């Protein structure tokens, strides 16, 4: 039926009504004009024009709105378009700002925990990301979409993955790389291959390795003797030293769970990040499969490959340490850069978890969440190509 339907898939005027009453009724109605699609003279062209949408159509609407009174008598026009004619109350800004909001508890805790420098870094990261996005879009003569919250989210996540007291140029340069290079050079929201925030962080890591690994002492824990992160201590001094630093195993877990430990600004509080993530799962913006698989993979592998052989690891520590929680709930669930099917998401999360463990236990860096997610971003298109949803009627 559809080919026939499309024969008049365009806007047309209402023909003059047959009865006088109706003409009067229409004359009284306010003029309303709208166009969704470019007008088309014949089918051949119609087919091509349909693919170039909104900018053009919107321009037309604007033009029409500016000079609507050209017809001899007011004619009420109606929109003719393809179905459906009903849309859910959802939008990209709604999703993005909700994600921003779920990060708020962790952000507030970070500011309390690390003090003013952390606040400045977060602010600089988020705001500069918004400014860079607006500038890029203006430069590329694209519609400016900073209000959708995606640039803010990108800048905020980037800043949350930085040490607390970096110089202010660090989050700004990071946001520049994230927004301009990793996002807009690839075509903007929806087209980027890599998680922009993690690209920003990776670029900063290789450019300013010292600044990016200088962990200042925390405000709230005055007697901490070391200014290293738990994973740093593990890498440099071993597991025993780690337990000694925190006093006991349970003290270590408590510090990780609540967040009173050193680390990047936004990654420290497991409980607050997980609460934000749970809200996103409840809203169905992210799939629970991703964080669960990724964290479980890290837990199982670190337990298996422990320092004293099979099964001697400390999975609880590894599952809560470093950037795993923020990565699993907020980075590995990024819609644009991860697979679209649930099965694909599962593969992505397991892969990211395994790579994290590989880097933590074998690699040179103490933490590997950022690189493991970026590496899995590379194979996302491949996963999407081979993992397809279960079709009706093709058993």
């Amino acid at each position, binding site marked *: 039926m559809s080919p026939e339907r499309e024969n008049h898939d365009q806007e047309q005027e209402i*023909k003059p009504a047959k009865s006088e009453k109706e003409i009067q009724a229409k004359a009284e109605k306010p003029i309303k004009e709208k166009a969704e699609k470019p007008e088309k003279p014949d089918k051949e062209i119609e087919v091509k024009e349909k693919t170039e949408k909104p900018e053009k159509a919107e321009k037309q609407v604007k033009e029409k709105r500016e000079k609507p009174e050209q017809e001899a008598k007011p004619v009420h026009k109606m929109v003719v378009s393809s179905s459906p*004619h009903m849309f859910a109350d959802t*939008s990209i800004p709604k999703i993005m700002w909700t994600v921003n909001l779920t990060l708020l508890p962790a952000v507030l805790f970070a500011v309390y925990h690390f003090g003013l420098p952390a606040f400045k870094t977060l602010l600089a990261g988020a705001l500069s990301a918004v400014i860079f996005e607006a500038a890029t879009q203006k430069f590329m003569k694209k519609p400016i979409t900073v209000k959708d919250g995606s640039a803010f989210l990108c800048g905020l996540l980037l800043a949350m993955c930085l040490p607390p007291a970096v110089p202010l140029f660090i989050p700004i340069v990071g946001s520049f790389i994230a927004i301009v290079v990793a996002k807009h050079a690839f075509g903007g929201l929806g087209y980027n291959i890599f998680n922009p925030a993690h690209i920003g962080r990776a670029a900063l890591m290789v450019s300013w390795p010292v600044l990016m690994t200088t962990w200042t002492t925390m405000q709230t824990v005055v007697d901490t003797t070391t200014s290293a992160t738990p994973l740093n201590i593990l890498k440099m001094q071993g597991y025993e030293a780690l337990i000694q630093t925190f006093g006991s195993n349970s003290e270590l877990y408590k510090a990780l769970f609540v967040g009173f430990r050193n680390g990047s600004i936004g990654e420290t509080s497991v409980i607050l990040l997980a609460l934000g993530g749970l809200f996103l799962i409840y809203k169905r913006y992210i799939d629970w499969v991703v964080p669960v698989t990724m964290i479980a993979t890290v837990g199982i592998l670190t337990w298996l490959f422990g320092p004293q052989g099979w099964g001697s690891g400390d999975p609880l520590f590894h599952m809560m340490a470093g950037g795993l929680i923020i990565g699993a709930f907020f980075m590995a669930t990024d819609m644009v850069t991860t697979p*679209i099917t649930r099965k694909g998401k599962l593969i992505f999360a397991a892969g990211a978890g395994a790579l994290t463990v590989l880097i933590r236990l074998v690699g040179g860096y103490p933490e590997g969440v950022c690189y493991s997610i970026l590496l899995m971003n590379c194979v996302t298109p491949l996963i999407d190509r081979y993992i397809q949803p279960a079709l009706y*009627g093709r058993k």
Partner: protein
Amino acid sequence: MLGKNKWGIHPDTHKTSTEGKPIESNALPGRVILPVSQHIGAPAVPLVKKGDLVKKGQLIAEGQAPVSSHLHATISGKVLEVADHPHPTLGKNPAIVIESDGLDEWAEGLPTERDWKSLDKAEILAIIKNAGIVGLGGATFPTYVKLSPPADNPIDTLIINGAECEPFLTSDHRMMLEYSERVATGILILKKVLGVENVALGIEDNKMNAVKAMGEALAGTGVKVMAVPTRYPQGAEKTLIRTLTNREVPSGKLPLSVGVVVQNVGTAMAVCDAVRNGLPLIERIVTVSGSAIAEPKNLKLRIGTSFAEAIAQSGGFKTPPEKLIMGGPFMGVTQYTPEVPIIKGANGILAFTHEDINDGPEAPCIRCGQCLDACPMGLNPSMLSILGERSFVEEALNEYHLLDCMECGCCAFVCPAKRRIVHYIRYSKKMAAPKGGK
């Protein structure tokens, strides 16, 4: 449950404005416009010309092709013209226009009471064909064709579709409440024609009063009245078959291939009227609703009544509508003029304001995957829309199962980027179709 069990969407049903209102049959239309193409298949061939006098129920156009349908005068009066006229789905199309003489006289021999139980299968089929009955759920496929499966294709199940899953529409709901007996008789006639034992009537569980009414009307007949979960598109043929029988119609095949025939409740009632009372299909029940309508109603209207007249009977427009739709909000067809007539498949007239539609500017796909969860066919609408946008028809066809899409609109509904996914899919389908073909 087999296959994908997470599918479909739960939009606001918006049925409360009309579901409690009895069907009204108001004044006769002064004029009816009867397009000769009201069904799937070849157009009917007009048998009358300008100036002819016709009676209600008289055959005025004959379906001559193997797949076609007869057309009857729906009022008595004079043929004004046989000419092109705006059509709800086909642009401008030939139509027979009749001006009422105000008498509303039946053609000779109508109505005729018959004892349908004494008729055999071939006789019933002939009556259904001669009454011009097509699928009244909206698909308008000629019913007698659907009831004549090839001999080598055994049918074991008849499903009657009373799901009415489209928001706003309540015509089938009211019909099942008010004309339970006629619907029930129609179901029994269909059962006899197909010679099947297994008959199920599926009604969405937001219409429990209809489930009860039909259950009482069908008590002791062996027809199962099933309440199915309210979920769009539950009433689509393929999804209803899956829900009621756990069978899945293979890709590219008809429900016949899994031994199932699906008929709408409205079709069942029309079959009853034709077989038991000798009446051709000349009227149907239409829901007139939407925020732009002053008094939303369920109306019994003669086929050929103009939308404008139906809207006037519903209090007219409260505000100028942004869209005027024939059918439901998900699969309905927008109209450019209220002068189009009601055709056999028109189950609703919806006048929507912007608040009803709630669309917005389109953005690129952010790959959130909500369309994949919503798709009842298990497709990847995200990818289909991206391929359609770039005219990659081959890939959509061969790797993403373009032709499996039934255009139910779930994907576009849930899309946070407000992408017109169904539009891209239709475009791809049209590009993929051989030139000149359908």
